[in-house]
């Protein structure tokens, strides 16, 4: 969204195109979860997104950072299962 011809990358790469950047990027590096196994990172971002929304409201834009992270990291069947648990009030975390 705000990287233009940063000088670090060749001109034609997607890093210099904000729209492409958004389409082609994936989860960013999180120093809290450095190993290959990212299941805790997935869980943490999922929980943080819903805590963010609960505290700040649905329209708060920076919450979408967590949403992008967890959508990139989490397997779909985990996210679906957790959504069902949240609706049933059985999700094992404090949101």
């Amino acid at each position, binding site marked *: 969204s705000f990287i233009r011809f940063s000088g670090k990358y060749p001109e034609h790469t997607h890093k210099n195109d904000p729209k492409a950047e958004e389409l082609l990027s994936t989860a960013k590096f999180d120093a809290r979860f450095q190993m290959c196994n990212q*299941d*805790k990172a997935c*869980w943490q971002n999922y929980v943080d997104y819903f805590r963010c929304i609960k505290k700040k409201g649905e329209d708060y834009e920076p919450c979408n950072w967590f949403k992008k992270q967890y959508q990139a990291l989490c397997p779909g069947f985990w996210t679906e299962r957790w959504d069902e648990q949240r609706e049933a009030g059985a999700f*094992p975390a404090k949101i």
Partner: protein
Amino acid sequence: MKSVSNKFLVSAKGFAAYFFSGKQSVVYYSTSVVRTPYHVVDPSPWPMIMGANLWGVAAMFICWVNEISLDSLYWGIPLFVLTFYSWVRDIINEATFQGFHTEKVQSGLTLGFILFLISELMLFFSFFWAFFHSALSSSVEIGCCWPPVGLECLDWSKVPLHNTALLVASSASITLSHNYLQWGDIWVATATYIATLGLSVMFIKNQYEEYAWSSFSISDGVYGSCFFMLTGLHGLHVIGGTCGLLFCFVRMMLLQFSSEHHVALTLAIWYWHFVDIVWLGLFFIIYIWGS
């Protein structure tokens, strides 16, 4: 038992024979005599019969977990008890009444028991490892926290603290009893021994009540599994230790222990101290830290 004169120790030619003269086992060879303080045991049928009985016990267990009828196997229990009783009676005869348990034999028994205690320690170590594995990096299924989300832990300052006090007091009283025995005062030794047994029975009753009224069970996730495996195994050890102490109590009442020579009692007391220390570990790690 023959008594052998020291001067005329002539062997039968061509074969070795065992003669027992009081506190020493004497081995005859064709050319020389070896006195040894070790206990060369007589042939005994009990180990083999015990092996067969243990097969019966194993068969009972297999039928129990596979829900096959146990009706044809119940005879295994009285046979097991009989064999155990006979074997132990033989050992007591050899030790207390025939005098085979020299210092060397006693130290050998003690060493064997220490190794057994170390193996029991390893057993508990493995379950503590399992507990720490699950507790230190809690998985997402239980909410990345310990204790798991939704689990009501037992309050450590209530029954578990009482249990700690019971076990520590019982360790102290059994030590007192042992000391009184060594000083020769058997009546106070008996009184403190009965106190120990009473405290341990109170502990077992407490644990039973906790188990009956607990809000979670062994199948309630990894917390339930770890908790009940550890405390359950410990409870079984307490029951076993109490049986051992009771057995030594009976022998003490039958005046089979002297103030210097009472290996079985010493080992039973060590086992009791081991059980106490494991409980302290359980209390601080599982009950306090883990809640």
